[in-house]
């Protein structure tokens, strides 16, 4: 868990370091947009830090459009 948190912090710092001034100078609307992105970041960070496997983006894709894809591929696999 500790190593995951360390990697997460280092990655975050490396990514945000160059944009710190830009983020500080952003207007109110931009700040709200940035905060809204905090929700998926928080959810995924908890998943990564605790090493749990909760619902993720690929699950949504696989459970919706993936079912049709699977059906199509199964049909393509049926050959003598």
């Amino acid at each position, binding site marked *: 868990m500790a*190593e*995951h948190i360390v*990697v*997460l912090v*280092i*990655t*975050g710092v*490396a*990514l*945000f370091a*160059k*944009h710190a001034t*830009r*983020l500080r100078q*952003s207007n109110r609307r*931009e700040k709200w*947009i*940035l905060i809204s*992105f905090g929700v*998926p*970041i928080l959810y*995924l*960070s908890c*998943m*990564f830090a605790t090493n749990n*496997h909760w619902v*993720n*983006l*690929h699950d949504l*894709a*696989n459970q919706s*459009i*993936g079912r*049709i*894809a*699977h059906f*199509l*591929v199964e049909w*393509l*696999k*049926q*050959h*003598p």
Partner: protein
Amino acid sequence: MNTVEKETIDARQLAILYVSFMTGSSIVYIPNPMIHFAGNMAWLSMIVSTLMGFLLLGCVLYLARCYPDATYTGYMNQIYGRWISSVFIILLILMLYLMLSYIVLGIGNFFVNTMMIETPEYVFNALTIITAAYTVHAGIEVMGRMFFLLVTSMLAFVILIVCLAVPIARTEPLLPLFYEGVKPILHGVYFSFGFPFAELFLFSVIIPFVRRENRHHVGKWMYAMTALSGFFLLIVVIITITTLGPLAGDRKFSLYAVARLIRIGHFMIGIEAIVGISLIVGSFMKATIVLFILNHITSRFFRLSDDRILLPVISLIAFLLSVTMFETESEFVFSVDEVWPFITMTIGIGPLVLAAIITLIKRKIRRN
């Protein structure tokens, strides 16, 4: 400070970005599943996919000609109206998150499976995303100039491997033809068209960055680069079948596996390490281009004046997705081999092809 107004590239730089995008990760990951699905007829699937790629490119270029002043989100708004286009763009953004995290995950997967098996995968994912984010921050002009060197070295190593593998290649594995009928070939087409040929629609986001005086060369360059990418992928598929034989469909990272077989005398062995690095460069270039497109579309969607303000957040989400998505490798294989091609064909090219048809009909009605 929108990038389209500020930064421009010429048609040749677009061609460099395009060929890095098309051959980038696919040259490493395509041969093995292709041969697994289509057997020794994988080469035919590749040819069909390339031809379909030409048709799709025709649609992309047609829309670029009809809306020369608009960005991708701009002309989607014009064609579908704001609400419908917003739905398509949200789906596209989600698709791009998936795509970026799959590419990043692929790089980590390659390292962990071949060269650095004891290092945790998230280390490679983090390094890839950080480097890609800094490259995108530098801008599309820098990417266009930098990728020339990287893509040249990557393709040079691919040519070198193919040439060195020719002496150990046998033609017998290419026969018999159509042994299991047409369905395996269609399966190969389904996979190889979805990845990478259907993905070329994303270049409708980058075409508006080309300087106005260079625009008339875009079509010529993009058709040529589609043919070149198809040719390279075809060569790699054929050399994999002919060198690895019946094992070709089961060996992961086929080109790397082919490079491991090459021995010239007692002095030229172990060249797979150089090949591995150059192949990873390909995936890195593709990840960077996808991150650029994702950042651009998201900024346009939120109508932000500063195109780079969301870059760190988007990169961090992509990194987190890449490290949290799959518990087992079979899940990843299922998502990439079965679901991903369908996603690109529906969420990706569906709205674009429909937009081209609507534009064509509208223009015909107006003319009449």
